């Protein structure tokens, strides 16, 4: 079975006055049907830009510089703008980090749901009145699906009249309104507090099963990934540095960066011990030397690391971009 989404060698750059920023530099990702893929990385790792590129939402001064994007067998880069628009919202949907800014403050929630249905739902009746009624019914249905009480009345309210958690749900509702095959959730929990976070993630998992949908969870929170994702991809400085089944990557991380990430998470079992952050800073994405990008922060680097490193196989479906795999102690 071919993957639902296949990204090969994606390169996305931003042209700035200071130089060309290589935000995504040769990224390969595959999302299978029905799976939940976690994409982890810090700010600047390129995780969000990768999926913006997939959706064709990268705007000047950014552009896609190379690579192949296949969705459900279709070459996304060869599609016309109109065809791409047909895909967005219908087959691939996206949610953003902060629902307060993602929802238009000047339009009611009902209007924002309605417009997606309006353009994508071919099953709507033709006559205006029936159409409006059908859209209204469907909107209420969707809001119920994501657990918004009193949906009927709330359709006429504005985004700022809802709490943070509810807004996130509304955003998810909008994204899922046309039952997309792939949901890209960009930092769905970052702007929420802990209890709400859990609810939202539960919701996504639930809906994923119900709608038989693939989900990409972009986050910097490994805890989220550990709980909800089948596979995980770790990104650093525009590249994928490790990927594999979640359990395996978390229990047996291979790349020094992944190890560092895991080690820096405060844990109850390690109480009393100092927190161990990863020393150093993300390299300059403009003038990238031809070496392992983690070189400056790596504790186990060797001379050979001063060359371009490619992905190496560690186990079944588990790969990492490091030459120190066998020797590295976990």
């Amino acid at each position, binding site marked *: 079975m071919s993957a639902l989404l296949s990204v090969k060698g994606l390169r996305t750059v931003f042209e700035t006055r200071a130089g060309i920023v290589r935000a995504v530099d040769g990224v390969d990702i595959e999302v299978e049907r029905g799976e939940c893929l976690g994409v982890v990385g810090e700010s600047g790792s390129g995780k969000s830009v990768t999926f913006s590129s997939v959706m064709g939402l990268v705007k000047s001064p950014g552009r896609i510089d190379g690579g192949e994007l296949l969705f459900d067998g279709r070459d996304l880069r060869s599609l016309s703008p109109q065809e791409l628009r*047909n*895909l967005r919202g219908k087959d691939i*949907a996206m949610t953003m980090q902060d629902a307060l800014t993602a929802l238009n*403050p*000047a339009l009611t929630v009902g209007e924002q749901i309605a417009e997606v249905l309006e353009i994508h739902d071919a099953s709507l009746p033709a006559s205006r009145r029936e159409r409006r009624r059908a859209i209204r019914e469907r909107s209420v249905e969707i809001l119920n699906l994501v657990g918004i009480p009193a949906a009927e009345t709330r359709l006429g309210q504005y985004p700022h009249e809802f709490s943070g958690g509810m807004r996130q749900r509304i955003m998810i509702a*909008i994204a899922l309104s046309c039952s997309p095959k792939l949901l890209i959730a960009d930092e769905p929990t970052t702007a929420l507090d802990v209890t709400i976070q859990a609810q939202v993630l539960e919701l996504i998992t639930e809906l994923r099963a119900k709608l038989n949908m693939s989900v990409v969870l972009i986050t910097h929170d490994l805890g989220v990934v550990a709980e909800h994702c089948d596979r995980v991809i770790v990104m650093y400085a525009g590249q994928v540095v490790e990927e594999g089944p979640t359990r395996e990557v978390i229990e047996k991380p291979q790349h020094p960066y992944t190890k560092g990430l895991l080690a820096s998470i405060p844990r109850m079992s390690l109480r009393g011990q100092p927190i161990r952050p990863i020393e150093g800073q993300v390299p300059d994405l403009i003038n990238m030397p031809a070496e392992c990008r983690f070189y400056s922060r790596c504790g186990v680097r060797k001379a050979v690391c001063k060359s371009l490193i490619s992905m190496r196989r560690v186990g079944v479906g588990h790969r990492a971009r490091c030459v120190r795999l066998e020797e590295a102690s976990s």
Partner: protein
Amino acid sequence: MSLGKLIERLLQLVPVLLGVSVIAFLMMALTPGDPVQIIIGDQQITAEQEAALRHDLGLDRSIPERFAIFLGNAVTGDFGESFYHRRPVSEVIAERLPATIELSLVALLIALATSIPLGVLAAIRKNSIFDRIATVGSLLGVSLPGFWFGILLLMLFAVNLHILPVAGRIGYSSEIEPITHFLLIDTLLRGRPDAFLDALSHILLPALTLGLPMTAILMRVTRTSMLEVLRQDYVTFAEAKGLSRRRVLFRHALKNALIPTVSVAAIETGSLLGGNMIVETVFGWPGLGRLVVESIFLRNYPLVQAAVLFYAVTYVLLNFFADILYTVLNPRVKL
């Protein structure tokens, strides 16, 4: 917004209006030159007649008393008699007011109709040639002295090209019986398209001159606001939903982007009041502005006083309206 809040805000205006009246009154009351002497002119009158006249005009009372009388009269619309016209000031002002209002409205319309599309286009095509020209244009717009620009326009269109008239509001042949006193409307109501065109040709240059600084400012505001809006997450989200570019632009971006534009327009409309005087003088437009300027030179103080008060009150109310408008348009801002 509730009526209660509205009334509360209106009441907050009262001290300002009061203060404005004080200043308007003082401006004229403290002007050198004895109004009585002006009225008398060259006539020979006795000392008693002079004293009687002074008493009639209330000029023998103290300043605070005179202010109270002034205010009391003002509220009923009585501003005394114009020295020059020998008619009640309110009557004279009322006569000239429609011309000024019509000019201001047309200027406002032209400004809005030009600046909004230009601003939006400049934002969409940021840094293109179009954008650069628009930026330069708007810089010029605020740097051009209105009176000079008006004269240039006259020289070009009226004198050299003979396309547009030199002065006045309408040609003699097109005079009609007024209904609303707004010529552009009246000429149509009376079924005289030729007169309408005539009135239009007369109002064009002055309205352009008057509206120019406003157009320049509004264009920049719209552009900045649009750029700001286009960067917002909800625009990206709207695109992620698969909406067409046009829909994203008009439904999502524009609605939010125009809020600052409208607010600034409401505020700047007040400055049209000041600009009126210049433009009406340059183009010989028979409006309130030109009347005020003439009256100053004629030392027609009651009229100047009334006009200053009128302008100030209008300005305060306009700013108030702009405030309210902003809160109405922006659902997130609560009073």
